[in-house]
């Protein structure tokens, strides 16, 4: 089964990358960009076939490794 884990900065946490991309886009003449935030997607191929069990294991992976829960949120998406 394929899964996508989306990791994003918590609201209010400074996103220096997003800020710099925003400035660069303005510099390139793109107008009307109001905000930019950058996040990660981790794409996993799992041998697990049961969605509930996959989700549980992914949640565990996020808490332990994939996300830095002090400053990041995560969302799990299963391709079913």
């Amino acid at each position, binding site marked *: 089964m394929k899964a996508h884990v989306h990791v994003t900065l918590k609201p*209010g946490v*400074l996103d220096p990358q997003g*800020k710099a991309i925003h400035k660069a886009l303005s510099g390139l003449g793109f107008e009307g960009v109001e905000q930019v935030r950058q996040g990660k997607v981790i794409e996993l191929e799992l041998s697990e076939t049961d969605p509930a069990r996959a989700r549980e294991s992914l949640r565990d992976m996020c808490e332990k490794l994939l996300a830095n829960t002090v400053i990041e949120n995560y969302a799990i998406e299963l391709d079913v």
Partner: protein
Amino acid sequence: MSDDTVSKVIPPNVIAQHGLSGEEYERILEIMGRAPNLLELGIFSVMWSEHCSYKSSKVWLKTLPTAAPWVIHGPGENAGVIDIGEGLAAIFKMESHNHPSFIEPYQGAATGVGGILRDVFTMGARPVANLNALRFGDPEHPKTRHLVAGVVEGIGGYGNCIGVPTVGGEVNFDPGYNGNILVNAMTVGIAPQDRIFTSQASGIGNPVVYTGSKTGRDGIHGATMASAEFGEGAEEKRPTVQVGDPFTEKLLVEACLELMATDAIVAIQDMGAAGLTSSSFEMASQGGLGVDLDLDRVPCREDGMTPYEMMLSESQERMLMVLKPEREELARRIFEKWDLDFAVIGHLTDSGRMVLKMHGEIVGDLPIDPLAQAAPEYRRPYVNTPQAPSLAPSEVPAPADTGAALLRLLACPDLCSRRWIWEQYDHMVMADTAARPGGDAAVVRIHGTNRGLAITTDCTPRYCQAAPHDGGMQAVAEAWRNLTATGARPLAVTDNLNFGNPERPKVMGQFVGCVQGIGEACRALDFPVVSGNVSLYNETNGKAIPPTPTIGAVGLIEDLARTATVAFQAEGEDIVLIGAGEGHLGASLYLREIEGRREGAPPRVDLAAERRNGDFVRGLIENGQVTACHDLSDGGLAVALAEMALAGSLGAVLSLPDDGGLPPLHAWLFGEDQARYLVTVPAAGPVLKAARGAGVPAAKVGTTGGETLTLPGGAPISLDELRAAHEDWLPAYMGDTAEN
């Protein structure tokens, strides 16, 4: 005043949440002549936090020596400033980011580096070197590896990006830091002496200018967090984590230095702990003035920020300046060139008050001097640490195999090579690193000259724990020795005093002992303290860290052609031991690592001998008489010798000096007596003679050569085996396999 800030009675729990005692609140009522509103309470709370007010430590800090003919600015400024000749000044300071780094190691350490860099370039210096003194918990503790990885990456992430070389530091592992790691960062900068900037505001009506990043809701109450113990509730404090933006800081450095080359700046102050509050208070109070701020003009990252949030935010990469009014436009152009926010947010007044306005209304109004001067100052009760019993060498068994003992010491967490760490730091950017990490002190060339600064950080917490006063002295002596071993003349010290909860008399006793020891050593060595930082409440659930007064120190090398490194240079040279030893094994690494014992008094520090021996060694280096030099510290003679052999990829045979009266062999090899150095010279004779003349103990103890190291009575150990022991522990511990 507007409705939401009208003085309401503030409930006791809110006062407590702000870390203020009932007595302190009473004082606030007196100063204000009325009840404060929440914004004002918040301001009092950060200004009176331990971190900003030094309320527990001030009486003791005052006892430190701070003057010398070469000191330009001692404590009281953002960083210390010393004269390094040719019209230049070295500006430096060390600061802790312990609590934030425990919560989020990468960002905590990164923002620690950012903060200390700002303290230095605020004063007009271009930062030229960073150092970091780190203490982690037991390597076996489940959190340690993660913390090491994050802290090291964070320090590198920030320093590498901004382009200031990270040239040195130190690392210890001890279970005493399991719940409270220490991340102390030091920055050294260089400025022309006639362009040094301070925070002393002047000129009523002059504009107060905000520049750098926008203000967000991050880090609110970081200063009070840094002043409170960790407990079960620590997790809830997490949203105070700040994210560093080294790119913006790089722009800020360049923009500030560009502006500083003009005559536009009256006063400048970085926004560090307690952000806009403490920076504006500091500037006004140093100048004996008042300040009006219009909070509508503060550049904000988020909508709807309250005055409380703006004043207490600890968003990074921000500066506050007072400018000459006619230079405002020039300054604006420079900051806009560097893509930084620039806003006039207020002006200086003669009111002696800080008046905060928003939406046309006064939302806060506080007297500046009474607040600053009435900051609590405590003479906390303390009990001296009981004298640790001394331990005779004969009470410590000899190892079955001295070679094996040496290998074990070289591979132990506190002594093994730190290459895994410093290779993650750009230690060569700026192309002036003359002595890279790995030696006694880093040497950074003063750009465009053939002179250099030697820089080190030192502290031996196990000594401080056993005997705070001696430990404090030893930290200073070791820093002084490390500078001397490169050939530098030691000039001045910055300190970072890391301790537990000062409200506990035992901890306070450690603090007092260490500060007294530091003061005594600095006085004896003409080594004034010019800046520093105090970090208290480093404890978790009532368990304090080992006392850790980190000493950062700077020395001057007049001619880079006349320095020494630890690396053996040539075959067949004589190895000379300078200084006397009785084989002191109390509180030694040998005792801990080989015998598994933590006991005994630390080695005696004889400051007169330190000075005499060090001055002698420096003279030899300056005269070009020695080819390599290393001071003796953790692990004693045998470890120092092995480090010199490994650095030079050249072996040696160690032999017992023929003057008799030696301690047992293992104590001679691994004893940690102070005030000692190993030097190599083409021939020992003249040096031994000169030493006798100077009243300095010296003896020939071996010869360089070959590809093995031979200890007296032992079998030769190959350098490869020594190298593997020394180099492999840290990468293996951090899980780096050869394939990477």
